[in-house]
């Protein structure tokens, strides 16, 4: 936490017009943040987070942002500096704590204001950075999240869809040897049929057993899951973990042992991330002994697309990618799309109940994964599988 922000908080606390509870809360937050800034090594980090999240207190959840990159964390400052627009609004400081553990201080200028905070960057897994942050969600969302989003393609996100979240939750359940239940979810839904009684848009639900509702929603709608809150309970119904998992690879710990969370949630998510990184990688169009080799993959759906959905796809995909639309939905969807930031290009078709993605040139794993996620955000989550060319 910067000195400036600390002073502001002190000043705020010392004012007389706050209730005792408010003051207590602010004091609590300030103390926590001070403590995070004082993490000196992995042991102190583990101890601090363990202590913080095994006691019931109102505090920001611990966010673990999982990023895929082969870069050395020490090049982070250079990465920011090389991007002119980013360098203008971000001030990033990285301090090595121990081995692959770094303390990260990020300050983002927002119009006349600024947000700043601390995080811990763990680069102990090859090809992965995990950024832990227990600051308020404003800093996590507008400071950290946006910073790393704009470092694409050097640093890329881990995007997980509904079926991958389910796999992950099953793995977590097995690891804890307990019962996992969904307690909350946010999703975007689009009716599968033209029946006007089904409405499209964002849908969220707080319920003890939200999974059943999620299943019933998936019968009538195409769903793109945004985030889920979950609980893991033991056989005595005691809560072992309260956490959250988002589509963009952010795992949150609200309550529970940090060591267990790290072992059973973060590591499982990394495992899943590396598996899918391998899936999306090395798929570009190749010429071998005079033969053209294609390595396409597809997103499978349970129902066929109608013309309206395909026109919507045409409209939406053009906003994020440099597209040439060969067929915009009639008789089917076929397009050539190019990632502006990465230069990777793909052939995309939607036929029957499958979307086929054929990497053409470059076709990096980052770009393929990002495109697959974007397509699922538009058309709903599906099952991703390789096609034998």
């Amino acid at each position, binding site marked *: 936490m910067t000195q400036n922000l600390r002073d502001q908080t002190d000043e705020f606390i010392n004012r007389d017009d706050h209730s005792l509870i408010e003051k207590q809360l602010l004091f609590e937050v300030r103390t926590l943040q001070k403590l995070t800034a004082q993490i000196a090594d992995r042991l102190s980090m583990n101890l601090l987070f363990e202590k913080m999240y095994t006691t019931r207190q109102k505090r920001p959840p611990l966010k673990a942002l999982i990023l895929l990159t082969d870069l050395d964390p020490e090049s982070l400052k250079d990465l920011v500096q090389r991007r002119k627009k980013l360098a203008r609004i971000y001030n990033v400081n990285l301090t090595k704590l121990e081995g692959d553990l770094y303390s990260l201080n990020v300050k983002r200028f927002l119009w006349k204001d600024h947000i700043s905070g601390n995080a811990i960057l763990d680069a102990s897994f090859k090809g992965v950075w995990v950024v832990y942050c227990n600051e308020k969600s404003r800093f996590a969302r507008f400071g950290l999240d946006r910073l790393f989003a704009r470092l694409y393609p050097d640093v890329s996100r881990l995007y997980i869809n509904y079926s991958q979240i389910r796999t992950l939750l099953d793995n977590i359940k097995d690891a804890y040897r307990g019962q996992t239940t969904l307690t909350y979810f946010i999703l975007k839904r689009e009716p599968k049929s033209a029946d006007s009684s089904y409405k499209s848009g964002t849908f969220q639900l707080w319920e003890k057993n939200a999974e059943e509702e999620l299943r019933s929603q998936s019968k009538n709608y195409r769903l793109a899951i945004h985030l889920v809150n979950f609980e893991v309970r033991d056989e005595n119904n005691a809560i072992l973990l309260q956490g959250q998992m988002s589509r963009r690879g952010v795992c949150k710990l609200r309550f529970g042992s940090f060591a267990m969370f790290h072992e059973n949630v973060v590591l499982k998510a990394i495992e899943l991330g590396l598996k899918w990184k391998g899936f999306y990688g090395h798929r570009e169009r190749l010429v071998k002994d005079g033969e053209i080799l294609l390595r*396409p993959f597809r997103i499978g759906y349970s129902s066929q697309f109608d013309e309206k959905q395909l026109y919507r796809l045409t409209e939406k995909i053009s906003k994020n990618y440099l597209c*040439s639309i060969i067929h915009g939905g009639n008789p089917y969807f076929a397009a050539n799309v190019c990632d502006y930031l990465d230069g990777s290009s793909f*052939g995309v078709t939607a036929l029957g109940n499958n979307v086929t993605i054929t990497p053409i040139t470059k076709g990096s794993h980052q770009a393929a994964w990002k495109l697959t996620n974007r397509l699922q955000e538009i058309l709903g989550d599906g099952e991703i599988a390789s*096609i034998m060319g």
Partner: protein
Amino acid sequence: MLSAPDLEQNCVRDYRKYSDTVAVCCAVYNLFSKNADLAKFVGIEHSLQNSDGATVTPDIAATFDNDKKGLVLELKWSLPSDEKLLEKEIKELGKYAVPCSHWRKSADKVDSQDLVLVCHIDDAQRVADMIRSLSKDEEQSYLAKEGFAVWSWSITPPKKGERKEELRLFSVYGKTRNQKIEELISQPGGILFPEEVLTFLRFTFTFIKEKPPLQYTMTIMIQNILSTFQRSSERESYDLHVDMIYERAKSFFPSWHEYDTTTIQIKRKWIGEALEKLCELGLCDKAPNKDDWWKIPIPILRTRKPIQQVLCKKIAKTYLKQIRTKKKGRPKSSISRPKATKKDKAITDYLS
């Protein structure tokens, strides 16, 4: 004169027609290379020597009946609407009707060879009518005989809840001497291609032998070729030589590994023309004092609309501007003289 929206619409339609013709080429290539019992695939743009001594390179060449018979397919993405030009195009097919050699190393010559013209459904009827009228001519009599056929293709939209979109090839005119192919193509609905052709095989190649419309080459270059030079996520300007671009583009031409010098020159020229046009539309620049070097910003274009639509709009606008300038022509020179005032003397006064 066509209006700007009409020009734009035609331009986008041509882009789509060429792209679908490439898909059909990939489909036929896939059909022959996977089903040797129908015909054994020889090559795309394979060089054949005809008995006149000329080298011909049909789009697709195959053999059947134990390499005793040859089959040549020529694909046309668009055929002229003008009757004379159409007649000329069809007469040019005659070069494939002359017996050819160099089919395979093992079978240099064939006993007979069949020719199939594959064209877009929009042109099919006109082509069939023209062929019927031309075949009356003795010189073009091969058009009426067995061994010459015209095929067309369609992508059929699905019937509600019944089936998916399909690519089908069907006969429009004539017959080949390949029994198996004829059995397939004469069945109701013609030859049904596997779904993969529409989903990913259409991206195997990007060009056919016939010259693409300029907007097509430009789009492919922007999306698949120039983008590979991108090194930073921010927009930067790159100095690129036309040969560097050609090298990257090479594998998108189906017969890139069999190229002779003439073909290389032709394909390189397509790229050169596309670069010139991009430059004319203000999307890139020529590098100063360097021949064949181009200053290209990558990404070259940022738009929320389909790229071919943006390019076609620009092309139509530039074209109409040029037409208007041409119509106006050079402004007529007029000599303006100040009018004489009362004080001025008449010219005749000086003569006396």
